[in-house]
């Protein structure tokens, strides 16, 4: 993780910005995955289909 951060291009400020953006995208993607799993397995809303 530390090495991945250090390998990011640009100066330290740019590395931090890129790392934060990557973390945000990963978090949003993770929430979409959670939402999909929840809506399909945990509680579909009780629809009859």
């Amino acid at each position, binding site marked *: 993780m530390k090495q991945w951060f250090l390998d990011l291009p640009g100066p330290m400020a740019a590395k931090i910005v890129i790392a934060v953006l990557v973390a945000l995208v990963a978090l949003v993607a993770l929430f979409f995955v959670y939402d999909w799993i929840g809506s399909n397995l945990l*509680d579909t809303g009780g629809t009859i289909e």
Partner: protein
Amino acid sequence: MAPSVRSLIMDDAATTKAEVSAAPSRGVAARVIRIIGWTSIIAGLLILGFVVQQLFVTTWFAEQHQEELAEEATTHFAEAEISEVAYTPPPPNEAADNVSGGGTVSSSTGGQALEGADPRTILVESEPDRGVAFAVIRIPKIEALEDGWAVVEGVGVRDLKNGAGHMPDTPLPGSPGNAVISGHRTTYGAPFHDVDVLGSGDIIEVDTALGTHTYKVRELKIVKPTDVWVTEPRDGAWLTLTTCHPKFSSRQRLIVFAELVDGPNYESIYA
């Protein structure tokens, strides 16, 4: 006899050799343990995140939307077009099979009453747009629904993120037939979390643009998610609530059948 200096040096050298040969295997074991440890920690955090997101974050969002939706429903009550239409109850032989369709509803200008049937009129409201909050459901026996929960039109994934939605191909609450409302049991505010405590005779109230429709619970059933018969039309005016069962699983559906006992259209439908 005391060991000689030579033998001590030899012993020391042997020990160092053994340590050197054991080091790589200890290093591999430590690495494997470290990987297993980190994998377990990450998996645990992902599962914890899932639980928090599903049980608390979705509910927080749904509850935040409830205020907006309650206002939207109030606006809908004021703006919905209400008209009086002819209603012909189903003939007695159809009424017996209990799935005939709740009679015939037609516009007041073009309605055709069945021969020999008693022509009546009922109030109907304009169909709400998809995703719009058009009703409020209240169940006094359930604490979470004591003050009401907004119901939106539609039962798509997006619609139900607000908690409860009306199945579009079924009549609106208060109309003849079988109005179906689906709702989440454990996520997105879980409005139907405790519907399993309902019993025969318990009251369900639904506010719409027409007024307040009061239903009495008649029956609870557990069915498969594919049992579409529960949404089929019924004689009289019914409200069917559907939700997941058991809690934290979508394996089955818990169905609450309730029949209209009071409201703006009650007299016309059940006269």
